[in-house]
């Protein structure tokens, strides 16, 4: 009995240690706000791949996605004092990355428009964005994955962002509402409409 109690106590201590060595995002940003640069590096380590996944699916270009993530972390570094512990850190950083990605898409649309104007209507050589940058990805990623990502990119922006956040990044509806600053009801309706559109375009994969 005593042994069992000892074991339980040791387990509790171990759990405590584990909890202590894995600080929450909010603890890390607080430490960074207090001048601990190592805490910032831990934040980067924790979020860099999550964010590239989100932004890459959203804009479809790996190099641009990586630039956006770099810029996101620079903004976190510069504006760390603007984060208040009333919102989850993850929603804050995703809001920054999402806004930068939207800005990039706006720039791209403008570039494409200029490019089309320059070429004229009769030319066939349109400025098509580079959707999948590396040739290795085309081979290794598989056709199914490639097709799914392309169909996600074909979705209108307002449906695409919520579908990615909900079904790929697995955020709750409330978190998505906080990231995009839109009501939960709107998020739900956009997710469902986005899924229906995606379902239609990927029907042969789903039947």
């Amino acid at each position, binding site marked *: 009995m005593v042994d069992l109690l000892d074991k339980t106590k040791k387990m509790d201590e171990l759990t405590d240690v584990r909890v202590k060595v894995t600080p929450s995002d909010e603890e890390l940003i607080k430490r960074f706000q207090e001048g601990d640069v190592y805490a910032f590096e831990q934040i980067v380590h924790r979020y860099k791949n999550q964010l590239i996944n989100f932004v*890459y699916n959203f804009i479809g270009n790996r190099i641009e996605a*990586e630039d956006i993530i770099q810029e996101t972390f620079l903004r976190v570094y*510069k504006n760390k004092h603007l984060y208040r512990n009333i919102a989850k850190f993850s929603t804050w950083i995703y809001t920054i990355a999402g806004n930068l990605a939207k800005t990039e898409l706006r720039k791209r649309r403008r570039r494409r428009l200029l490019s089309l104007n320059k070429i004229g209507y009769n030319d066939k050589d349109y400025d098509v964005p580079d959707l999948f940058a590396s040739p290795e990805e085309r081979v290794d990623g598989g056709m199914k994955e490639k097709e*799914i990502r392309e169909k996600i990119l074909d979705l209108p922006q307002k449906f695409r962002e919520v579908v990615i956040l909900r079904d790929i990044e697995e955020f709750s509806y409330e978190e998505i509402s906080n990231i995009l600053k839109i009501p939960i009801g709107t998020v739900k309706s956009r997710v469902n409409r986005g899924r229906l559109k995606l379902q239609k375009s990927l029907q042969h994969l789903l039947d």
Partner: protein
Amino acid sequence: MDPCENFLKAIFDFVDGELDRKSRRELEHHLRECSRCTEQFNRIRRLRNHLRELPQMKVQDHFMIILRERIRREIVPRGGAAPTINLKQISWVPALGLIVFLILMSSSILDRPLPVFNQVHTVQGQKISSMQGIAGSNINYVIDDFPYDIESEYFEYDNKKPVTHIDSLLLKRDLKKMKAHIRAVSF
């Protein structure tokens, strides 16, 4: 109205795990009887699984190196996390008042000598002062008879009265007085 349309939302909620027990029982009952909704349910579930199973992207290996370099180049030289000014957040009336106040004060401020940072160490009984001049050069002076009491490694002179402080400030005129007591210079 198509009765199945009511169940479409329930299917989405079910896939999201957000359907309460009662609605879930109703949906399950409906799915047993309606092949069309069952197909729709399966398609949505498969779509969700496909999206979840998409391979996770990873940043390139040198991502962190580039980020550190950009922080060093773009942020740190400006003094750590430099505060950014959002023009929209500025309340213009107090800001204008502050500008006028600063202009009025500037005449008296300009008459005063510029502050010079100074750090004093005691080495083997000798008082050595490392002074940073206006041009930013460090010159070490060995001071024979320092005119003020030194209470700590760092100190501040305020109106000739020594005050212990982390960041030391020495007015230019005090520096001139100090130089009068300098016996030797070491670099």
